[in-house]
């Protein structure tokens, strides 16, 4: 009997797979190794120590940048998710009408626009606004991050809403639930995993952003990524490796938590 086709049995499959995974994870692996180097070299490993984690934790600039990053990311992620949820409801819980597709496109277009273009545009607009109202605080950074997070938050929320069985909402209305109660007791509980995913995605995207932040930030408003970039231009020490490892652990933790949270719900 002929075996069914399986890509796994193709010649060279294993080699190809190993090459791909190596390309993906080997550099990260090297980065992690050198975070634990006791010397300040990024090419000679001399001994295991937590020296660079210590140094980073003692460095006031690192701490400040970290706090700022989390501040900006959490506020931006929450606002963006709220906006995206409303946008997703408005675009899925309606009868199709001319112009709806255009609105989808409008909501998703920022994903396709080169980030550098958005960055320059925001820089110009914000410098104007700063001149008019005199405010120079962190608000601009938060506003910019919120703006580019919306389409990312929108994706999982809309997907969740589109896959939801509409007769559930019809059934709620049939059982005396007003529009608000239908949303509160049926739509929202079923939408939670999508909202959480949107929140996480925008948080991580914001935390990670360099280009727009670099353009929009004022002096003394470094986030963790822009601080690290600045460091690399001067002297490279395993301190950046240590910070990267912490960020890596943080994102793995968030994704794991989310995975188990959404598993328990279903």
């Amino acid at each position, binding site marked *: 009997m002929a075996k069914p086709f399986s890509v796994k049995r193709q010649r060279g499959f294993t080699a190809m797979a190993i090459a791909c995974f190596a390309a993906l994870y080997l550099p990260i692996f090297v980065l992690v190794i050198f975070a634990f180097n006791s010397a300040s070299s990024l090419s000679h490993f001399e001994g295991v120590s937590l020296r660079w984690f210590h140094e980073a934790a003692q460095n006031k600039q690192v701490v400040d940048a970290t706090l700022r990053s989390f501040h900006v990311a959490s506020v931006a992620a929450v606002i963006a998710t709220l906006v995206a949820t409303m946008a997703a409801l408005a675009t899925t819980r309606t009868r199709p009408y001319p112009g709806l597709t255009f609105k989808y496109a409008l909501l998703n277009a920022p994903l396709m626009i080169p980030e550098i273009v958005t960055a320059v545009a925001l820089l110009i607009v914000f410098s104007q606004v700063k001149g008019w109202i005199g405010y120079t605080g962190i608000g601009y950074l938060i506003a910019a991050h919120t703006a580019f997070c919306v389409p990312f938050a929108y994706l999982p929320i809309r997907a969740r809403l589109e896959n939801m069985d509409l007769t559930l909402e*019809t059934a*709620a209305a049939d*059982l005396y639930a007003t529009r608000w109660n239908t949303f509160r007791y049926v739509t929202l509980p079923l939408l939670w995993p999508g909202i959480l995913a949107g929140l996480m995605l925008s948080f991580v995207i914001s935390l990670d952003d360099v280009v727009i932040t670099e353009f929009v930030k004022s002096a003394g408003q470094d986030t963790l990524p822009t601080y690290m970039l600045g460091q690399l231009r001067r002297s490279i020490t395993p301190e950046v490796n240590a910070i990267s490892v912490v960020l890596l652990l943080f994102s793995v933790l968030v994704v794991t938590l989310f995975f188990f949270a959404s598993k328990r719900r279903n």
Partner: protein
Amino acid sequence: MNEAIGIRDVSKVFGQGDTTFTAVARVNISIRENEFFTLLGPSGCGKTTLLRMIAGFEFPTDGEILLHGENIADMPPFRRPINTVFQNYALFPHMTVADNIGFGLRMLGKSKAEVSERVIEMLRLVKMEPMAGRRTSEISGGQQQRVALARALAPQPKVLLLDEPLSALDYKLRKEMQLELKRMQHETGITFIFVTHDQEEALTMSDRIAVMSKGQVLQVGSPRDIYDAPADRFVAEFIGETNFLTGRVRKIAEETAEVMLEGGAAISATAAGVGVGDDVTIVVRPEHAEVVAVPATGSAVTKGTLENVVYFGTDTHFHVRLPDGSVFVTRQQNRPRLSSEFAVGSEVSIAVAADAARILRAGA
């Protein structure tokens, strides 16, 4: 008897401009209190659309829907004391069986005590007490069906709507649920409006049936009325098997017309609204006709060639090819002695029981 639901000249047109589609066309039905009423018709005839308008998920383009005399055509669904059992059940997946059943009552603002008391009562009615704490994904299809029913009955609606609720169940479970539904309708005294495209289901369960086709109601009546006196050819064909004969009315005496068939034989049939000389269609149910030996005696009406004999256990079907080319089917109950004494290919006569032939309304 009082009217529970009145449907007055209701139409529903979907689409706009030049791509409109009339799903329901000027329908008039009066459904009585405490009645098991069935909407029966082929796929796409507008049954669901009509039901959705009664529930409030769809609004009529034209006409009135009355609930105990009050026009509710524009009332949103959550204000109507009408509940629905959905075809796919539509149970809330994030709630337990008990929470599903209590949902309507909670939305009506009933007290916790009242809700839980009623939920227990409902669980008992549908025999699901041991499953109260289960997730809806952890129960079988038949059990989900019961929960959907309990959830819709819990708020004690004036009218219960059921859209093909049994179509997803296997044959045996379906038969069981048919009886259960009848029992529950009897126990609760709620008006049931039931949608199906299964004529057997409609005949066995309903007090009255409305037969629909292409958005229109063709006939409303008891299962007996509809089976015995179909209003037109469509109804006759849709409900059970039927033989059609064509001929011309020769004589009318009281309620009985004598019709000359195309084959040359005469048959008497009950008639209403026809005159001498009219071309008419006559319907004869297979169980009201019999195949008899050729030198026919008495009631034999027409002759043909026996083409096929199909044995069904309880009865036997005889397919007879008539001279005009059509096939006439008779269904005869099997008795111990009745071995098939007619050979396939032989000439036979068909005898129709007295009063069994019926003339369709002229033009139908």
